């Protein structure tokens, strides 16, 4: 059981990281973005592309300290993130921005985001194929902690990176002028517009942040498991559950929801087959929707 709790925290960290962007976009534009999972897959595969490119440079083609991956992957975070951010902003300008003027735009956007998800997944299948891929093949080093907990060294890296990224975004939203404007917009879009906030600019920023975080989450999930074209779609379900559990637009809620989902999914494997993990996410989500549709931290 203590082992399952630790695994739950590792998985929960990735879910928490991935769900911030989802709840941010949902809070600001009312759009439930189905393509979020496939943006995650795209980010993970972009990192694979750049890691392979960078590994031609000799000194990058060495193990990054005690971890199972090379320095080339560490460096690949940067271009993968930048491209994902740009992609997220461009898709918003082309697909969702024209819709925002119409009524019932959030449903139209929701349906369109399914189309975006298909396009991304199709592209990934065509470029990389359906086979599983690994950032670095080979054995992964294990740590033996007290109480019989076996932890991979990589999992320390995963938690370190995800929680520093979360902290950075949190500080940005709390302190930076841009962050304050974003929170104002999420809180009350009409009031924010009257106060002179350039809403379209802010929405572009929100998409950028969402792209940034989901790419990191995708790479970390790729390190934890492996890369496959459906990874993000399958991961989307716990992401949704975490966001609904946390409440629309609530970052704190998404973080708490992510951890709860990670723990619930891993601990359930003590009694249920691991293949039921996604179903656990659904059941939690449906229970929340029925008994507390606002979520734990939600205001709406």
């Amino acid at each position, binding site marked *: 059981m203590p082992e399952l709790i630790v695994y739950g925290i590792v998985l929960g960290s990735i879910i928490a990281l991935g769900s911030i962007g989802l709840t941010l976009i949902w809070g600001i534009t009312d759009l439930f973005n189905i393509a979020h999972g496939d943006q995650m897959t795209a980010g993970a595969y972009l990192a694979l592309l750049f890691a392979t490119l960078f590994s031609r440079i000799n000194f990058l083609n060495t193990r990054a300290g005690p971890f199972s991956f090379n320095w080339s992957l560490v460096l690949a975070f940067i271009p993968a993130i930048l491209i994902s951010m740009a992609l997220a902003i461009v898709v918003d300008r082309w697909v969702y921005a024209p819709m925002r003027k119409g009524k019932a735009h959030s449903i139209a956007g929701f349906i369109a985001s399914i*189309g975006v998800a298909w396009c991304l997944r199709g592209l990934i299948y065509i470029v990389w194929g359906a086979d599983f891929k690994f950032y670095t093949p080979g054995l992964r080093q294990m740590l033996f902690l007290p109480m019989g907990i076996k932890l991979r060294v990589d999992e320390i890296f995963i938690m370190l990176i995800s929680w520093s990224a979360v902290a950075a975004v949190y500080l940005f939203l709390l302190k930076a002028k841009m962050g304050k404007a974003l929170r104002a917009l999420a809180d009350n879009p009409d009031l924010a517009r009257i106060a002179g906030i350039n809403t379209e600019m802010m929405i572009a920023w929100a998409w950028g942040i969402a792209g940034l975080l989901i790419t990191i989450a995708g790479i970390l999930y790729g390190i934890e498991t492996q890369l496959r074209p459906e990874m993000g779609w399958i991961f989307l379900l716990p992401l949704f559950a975490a966001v609904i559990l946390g409440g629309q637009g609530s970052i704190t809620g998404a973080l708490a929801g992510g951890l709860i989902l990670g723990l619930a999914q891993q601990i359930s494997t003590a009694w249920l087959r691991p293949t039921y993990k996604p179903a656990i996410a659904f*059941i939690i989500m449906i229970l929340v929707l029925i008994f507390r549709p606002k979520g734990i931290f939600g205001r709406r």
Partner: protein
Amino acid sequence: MDTALGGIISFLITFATMASIYAIFSMGLNVHWGYTGLLNFGIAGFFALGAYTSALVTSRMPTGALANYVKQVFGLGMPFPIGVLAAAIVAGLIAIPVGLLTLRLSEGYLAIATIGISESIRIFFNNESWLANGPQGLIGLPQPLRSLVSPDYYNFVYLAIVVIFLVIVYLALERGIRSPWGRVLRAIREDETMSEADGKNVFLFKLQSLVLGAVIMGIGGSLYAHFSAAIQPSVFEPLFGTFIIWTMLTLGGTGNNKGAILGAFIVWAIWSWSTYLINQVVPPGFQTRAPYIRYILIGLILVIVMVRRPKGLIGEERQVSRF
């Protein structure tokens, strides 16, 4: 029959059968989304329930050596019409608790909840092998009127059966939407509060709409199961079970049964004909990946329709009643 011509005809018959089955699903979704405004993203769940029910009701328990490999909870060996009927009833009955749980949720939540329910149904069939043989699924399902013609011509017979169902569903729905009952559904879609103020029990009408659509989807599932004669849980993944049907309805015209049918034929034509084209054009080394171009095509259709033409090719008729 000349083989080249025979190949084309057989391809067209298979195409028309699948497109007609999808048209039935698309009309079922039209009841939910087009008429009542219910964002049902769990079509695959009702599809699976219909297909599995019909398969279990019509097939026989495996005997002899086969019994070691194929497990199913029961096999009644009933005729095909009973299978379709059972599929419709089971899908309709399951829709009642689903509706009681989800119909009070707002639009977006309803969508997510229905995805969740349909995925749970699929995962359940995948994991519980005693029920319907788990991931391997059931094969060799009985086909109606099989002995009537030689196997070469059987697909004509099945196409005729599917078309009969398509016509029945179409006529029933056209009648339904032109009735006072149908007008209440459209009123609820346009303004729920107003309909409530007019003394309509909005929740009850939504539930009726959900059940009716689910019954149609259950029938579609049964028709699919006996056409392919084999079902496994992977058929009911959201892509083929749900989202392709959404693309069909939104492209054809939400709120219009003719649009639902048109969309099903166009999207299925793009899907199946592009497979054929890709096999002809693409070099062999790339053939395993090229079919995924279809994902991009379907995705682009959905995006372009939603951005440029949200009403679809044929929009809704503004007036459905003469009075």
